[in-house]
């Protein structure tokens, strides 16, 4: 199998940085393997927002199988986190050695934006439909019209189909979106209904919430009734009552925080939909002669390595 490309590594790694090996013994980490190295982060190229201030700080990198480093070696490191302690400990998926004389590597965009864009790209790749439009109404889905317990005090048997009570109740709502343009997933259409959780419970608070007038790019996934239909309680309540909970047909949802993008992103998203494999690139500025180093190590199964540790 050929070694993974720069783009493949970039797709697998959450934290990518340009760094310099400080020590080939990571003394600060008592349970680190003997090949762990200490690396100074020179520039963060991709990472979550809370890690974008790591430039100038040391991290511990556990090399992938067969990967070797020497002191003062400079490279682009493709990593994921293993542990956050006194020091950040990362597992290397591979690295790209930088030639002597390279003065630096910079991301063309903010490191967190790069990661966010990658996440958007992954959502786009699995989306069943992507539309540009405006929310015109928010309403209760039919499955939520069944009453809660207590509202059926003088219950007739048919009333006993109801939602039971849990703090994780998603409080499903349907957003009606007037479609301006379909970027993915079929021909022109006037409207699409998106089911979303109105709940602020920990399970649901990150899912986008919709209000009439909201405009944007909506990245939609078809979801089964099991996930976005009546609440679990409704099903159980129906079972108790010997009735059958109303099971809706497949519905569209937008549950990931990146599933709704601002209207100004529509052009870029259109491009990403056209080229789903495109990845964010970095600009390498070199003082000396440009030389693209071959990726020296490849990523083995990350989980397998973690298991053997």
């Amino acid at each position, binding site marked *: 199998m050929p070694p993974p490309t720069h783009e493949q590594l970039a797709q697998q790694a959450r934290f990518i940085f340009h760094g310099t090996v400080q020590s080939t013994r990571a003394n600060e980490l008592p349970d680190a393997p003997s090949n762990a190295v200490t690396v100074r982060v020179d520039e963060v190229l991709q990472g979550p927002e809370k890690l974008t201030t790591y430039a100038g700080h040391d991290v511990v990198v556990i090399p992938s199988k067969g990967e070797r480093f020497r002191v003062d070696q400079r490279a682009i490191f493709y990593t994921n986190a293993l542990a956050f302690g006194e020091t950040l400990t990362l597992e290397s998926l591979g690295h790209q050695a930088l030639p002597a004389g390279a003065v630096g590597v910079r991301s063309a965009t903010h490191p967190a934006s790069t990661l966010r864009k990658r996440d958007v790209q992954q959502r786009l790749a699995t989306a069943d439909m992507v539309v540009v439009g405006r929310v015109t109404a928010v309403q209760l889905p039919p499955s939520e019209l069944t009453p*809660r317990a207590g509202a059926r005090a003088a219950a007739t048997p048919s009333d006993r189909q109801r939602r039971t009570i849990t703090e994780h109740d998603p409080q499903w709502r349907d957003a009606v979106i007037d479609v301006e343009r379909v970027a993915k997933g079929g021909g022109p259409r006037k409207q699409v209904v998106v089911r979303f959780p109105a709940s*602020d419970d920990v399970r649901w608070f990150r899912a986008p919430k919709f209000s009439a007038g909201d405009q944007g790019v909506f990245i939609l996934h078809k979801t089964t009734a099991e996930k976005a239909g009546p609440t679990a309680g409704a099903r159980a309540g129906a079972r108790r009552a010997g009735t059958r909970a109303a099971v809706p047909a497949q519905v569209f949802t937008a549950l990931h925080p990146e599933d709704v993008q601002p209207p100004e992103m529509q052009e870029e998203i259109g491009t990403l939909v056209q080229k789903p494999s495109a990845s964010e690139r970095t600009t390498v500025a070199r003082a000396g002669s440009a030389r693209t180093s071959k990726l020296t190590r490849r990523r083995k199964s990350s*989980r397998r390595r973690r298991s053997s540790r």
Partner: protein
Amino acid sequence: MPRTSIRRRASRRRRRVAAAGQVLVVNMIPKSLSGEAEQDSEPSIAVDPQNSQHIIATAFTPDPMGTGFAPIFVSSNGGHTWALRSTVPSQNITGDISVGFGGGGRLYGGILKVPGGLLLNLLRSTNPFGTTPMTVLKNRSDVDQPFVRAQRLGTRDRVYVGNNDLAVANGRTATIDMSLNGAATPPQFKKVRIERRDTGSAGQNGPQVRPAVHPDGTVYAAFYGWRSFSASQRVTSDVVVVRDDDGGAGAQPFTALADSTDGLPGRLAAKNIAFVWDARLGNQRIGGDIAIAVDPANSRTVYLAWAALEASVYTLHVRRSTDAGVSWSPNDLRTKAAATNPALAVNAEGVVAFLYQQVIGTGASRRWVTTIERSANGGQTWQSNVVANVPATTPAPQFQPYIGDYVGMTSVGTDFYGIFSANNSPDLTRFPSGVVYQRNHDFQTRRLFDVDATTQVAVSIDPFFFRITE
């Protein structure tokens, strides 16, 4: 035991509690995550009984990297320092999580997995300090608030997971998922329905189902036996305690304790109490609280806490039984108005600790005050330690639960170990028992800083560990 020895032991305990013990409080966010500003609420804790230096904790802390696993906090030095490792098979965060240690350093976990609405996963790790993801032992849907307790008994781990199984058709949803050999491959779990009474118009029990396990095989569980649920979300309920004297191994598990009024299994420790579901106390949602703990030196002594409205105020009550749950102290040992998140633990010398979080004051000056009270004489007198006294209205909630639907506390030997969530502003006046921060901070200017030590970080809700060394 001779009467003089008992008196001497009690006297020794009183002296120790009077000395207030040593209280260690640690902000658990590690230094390498100094930029963190998440709402790390609803904490739980497990201490390895064979090596109390090894502690695992959880909270609603998302995976900082967003890699697809949820994190746990690990400490291998008795809670002085903590690291975060993402080994829980749930997408970045869980919907609920609690943990417990069995023998041999094995950790058991119960989560609501993400994605999934109410998808219960029972988990195990043979090395929770490593980086290998936890193993899924069992999963099923329509389950709420799994609450794990485990106990090594002989060569086997007994594992009990209290939960509210909403898939039950008869409305008696309070359930214990249990295994008599959790370390087996694969372990066998069985579901035990512990509600024997009609749940009336509620049609279900409350989500809080709490087991307490004793080394002699005795297991208690406490839950709200909901009896009605009104259109205004007012719940009426009994507080029910069940017991099994052989760990649930028999043909009729958790039926050892019957109520004298109806002869049914499950002692009604409190009857016809009420509260409002999904009400607010401070910024925190409320809808019932239950805690139970058994004396490790005497399985007949058990403490129980629950919440109920008293004169329209959400109030915690603590009572004690010395006859294995048959009868309960007629009056409260402790009564705490405007309080939530009770946790109880009893140490090897019979000292009981009661942890709770109370709203003090009114309006914008309200405070969340987290207190640990201990009694060495069965609840006659109490020694109090306030571990946090922080603003109740800042930071603004990111989601519910704000500080958690529960906290955690346990004991190993004579020491108490606990965890709570609170406003993380590094202000020493807010931590009367002292506090240690790992993340970058300045106690003088009361500010938090990112890993670069210059970028200021917003105040948020953090998990705090405490240990009381008797």
